């Protein structure tokens, strides 16, 4: 048993660190570190920089443009990126759809889509959830009917992140209404510019505009956009959801947030002293840091187990539950640290280029909205209740 990174791994960490230092634009870093609004272009500028470096798709096989990194190297990369405030790559193309195309797509799809995912010419979104189908995804009802060389798609997706600026959507659609629910589903790639698609924004409770409803009204999709076989889409979806698990613990991002929380608690005053010296607050921060330390090692243990080529198993549910819990509590403590100054609602202050005097300290505007918004992390990506079901069924046989 040995915790230290090897000399090569340490050298790799240095390489990543200096690459980010030399290339991450200051304005993007400022937005990330201070919780300001990130637009499509902000994500894509960094995406393109990583692409030029050959680092945009560490999870892909090398022959398709992957990096050939070990799981430990990937972890180091994610860790360094998160701590430095480098934006994550928008996951829908690189992390979700790309691997499905690589594994199950045909040659045309590989040649047409993969380079454009890497170069960010195509930005993707994920059309899985529907109003009636969330945790019970397999009950989805958006249907696709074969008509010659095309499918005609009708129905509705919802909660679709980034649909407001995505070029393509990968959809789960029902192609065989008569079959058992998991067996009548197909995986279809749809150009968002196709006539009949309407995107309606959903405002979240923090005032944000990151999710949407997507309506399909007789949308004509070329049959060549079907991934793999008709009615086998559920298998591909399960493969996709399994891939989503790496990085799910979000340890790097939480370490960064913890550092910021400590800075806030050092600046805020309580009875003339820094808040961080208030024993109650101090205890809560310390206890959370202990949890984060444990999660970091749990994450590393699971990554080390993957080194032997094993894919992530149901154990990754542990990472999702703890990782989301820690992220939520970090935002909660940052909000608490501000006391009454968590109250002013200054949404404009989160826009780039806003230069009025903030109400309260400049880190105040983001705190409560961030806390409200982060209630989502225990809901999406398989809710924490569903993750507990996975642990009890798949790991424990209950």
């Amino acid at each position, binding site marked *: 048993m040995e915790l230290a990174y090897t000399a090569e791994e340490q050298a790799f960490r240095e390489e990543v660190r200096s690459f980010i230092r030399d290339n991450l634009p200051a304005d993007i870093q400022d937005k990330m570190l201070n919780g300001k609004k990130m637009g499509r272009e902000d994500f894509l500028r960094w995406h393109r920089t990583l692409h030029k470096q050959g680092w945009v798709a560490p999870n892909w096989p090398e022959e398709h443009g992957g990096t050939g990194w070990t799981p430990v190297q990937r972890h180091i990369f994610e860790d360094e990126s998160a701590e430095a405030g480098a934006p994550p790559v928008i996951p829908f193309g690189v992390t979700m759809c790309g691997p499905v195309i690589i594994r199950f797509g045909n040659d045309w799809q590989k040649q047409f889509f993969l380079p454009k995912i890497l170069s960010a010419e195509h930005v993707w979104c994920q059309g899985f*959830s529907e109003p*009636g*189908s*969330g*945790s*019970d995804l397999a*009950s989805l009802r958006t249907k696709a009917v074969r008509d010659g060389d095309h499918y005609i798609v009708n129905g509705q997706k*919802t*909660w679709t992140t980034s649909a407001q600026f995505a070029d393509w959507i990968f959809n789960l659609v029902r192609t065989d209404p008569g079959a058992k629910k998991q067996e009548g589903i197909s995986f279809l790639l749809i150009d968002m510019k196709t006539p009949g698609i309407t995107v309606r924004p*959903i*405002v*979240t*409770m923090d*005032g944000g505009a990151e*999710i949407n409803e997507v309506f399909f009204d007789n949308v004509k999709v070329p049959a060549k956009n079907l991934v793999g076989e008709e009615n086998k889409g559920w298998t591909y979806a399960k493969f996709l959801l399994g891939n989503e698990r790496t990085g799910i613990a979000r340890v790097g991002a939480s370490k960064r947030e913890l550092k910021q929380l400590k800075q806030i608690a050092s600046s*805020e*005053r*309580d*009875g*003339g002293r820094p*808040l961080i010296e*208030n024993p*109650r*607050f101090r205890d809560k921060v310390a206890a959370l840091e202990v949890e984060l330390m444990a999660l970091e090692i749990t994450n590393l243990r699971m990554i080390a187990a993957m080194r032997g080529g094993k894919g992530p198993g149901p154990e990754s549910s542990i990472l999702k539950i703890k990782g989301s819990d820690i992220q939520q509590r970090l935002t909660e403590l940052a*909000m*608490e640290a*501000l*006391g*009454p*100054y*968590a*109250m*002013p*609602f*200054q949404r404009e202050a989160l826009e780039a280029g806003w230069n009025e005097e903030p*109400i*309260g300290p400049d880190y105040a505007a983001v705190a*409560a*909205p961030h*806390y*409200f918004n982060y*209630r*989502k992390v*225990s*809901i*999406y990506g398989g*809710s*924490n*209740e569903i993750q*507990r*079901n996975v642990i009890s069924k798949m790991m424990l046989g209950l």
Partner: protein
Amino acid sequence: MDFDFTEEQRLLDETVRRLVKDEYDIAKRKSYMAAPDGFSRKLWDRYAELGLLGLPFAESEGGFGGSAVEIMIVMESFGRGLVVEPYLASIVLGGGLVSLAGSAAQKQAILPQVAAGKLLLAFAHGERQSRYALADVETTATKDGSGWMLSGHKGVVLNGDSADQLIVSARSAGGSRERNGIGLFLVDAKAKGVGVRGYPTVDGLRAAEVTLDGVRVGGDAVLGVADGAYPVIEHAVDRALAALAAEAVGIMETLNAATLDYLKTRKQFGVPIGSFQALQHRMADMVVEHEQSKSMAVLAALSADLADAAERRRVISAAKVQIGRSGRFVGQQSIQLHGGIGMTDEYLAGHYFKRLTMIDQSFGDADHHLDRFAEVTLSAG
């Protein structure tokens, strides 16, 4: 022992419940929030007509001589409907300070107007550095002939942007954070040297940053004693805390009802999600938290005006701890159990959740009040 309402209280409860039910839902609330003052002047007039605005003031002051129990009844319903009118700022705090500390002349000049809905008050007390410490006042009051000159900055003043008169706390003596030396001053919001920067709050209310730049007021602007207002401030804030406890209980009631309804109607895997035992237990815990909070809100209302100030402090802080912690649990779980729909601005849960969250950070959060509670209860000897 008797936890029942009197006949008058029952009528009051019925009236306010009905009013809130008729006049409030999320869409209506948004339309009230969009008005220049961030609330409905029309409803404010209705409250005046119904006698709600004079409820806590003595009959000789144009009021109805109601106690903290009547305020609890009103605030619980206001919580149920997530009312945005400045009842806490203007009636409970503003009016409360005047009726606790004002001279007969001041009360006569102000309270009947407040009760009639013609005059709005706000309590300009907190400061950037003060967090929840009521004695942490750096705004200064210096003698100026027979009057006073006020200078300083007041932060997150609830409904400070619509108030006609501000009740400003300022230090006329003593060092920062000392309890002695604080005074309360009536300041016309339009007076020279008063700067008001209003803004919405994350929970749908309004607040303001108030700057006082050499503001001159007469000797008759002092409420009570110019260097001895701390006990009054503490008492008025304790009443506000009891009112907030009731509001929080009303909010939890609505959140629990909405969540229970959702558990019964939302289907996944072919069954109502309320059939999953994990969610049944969660919902049961939410109900337990609501009941515990309700008990403490009742206790707080019955103790808000106790002659024994130490006992009052102890009970009020205990109630604030309870609603802070229960509110956190009920709020978070109500969103969680709704899934995606709970995250939206369109659905009601998020709005209740946000207000409940900010109630914890009003006049001391659960940690702050756990300290204050422990100070009274646990000091040795």
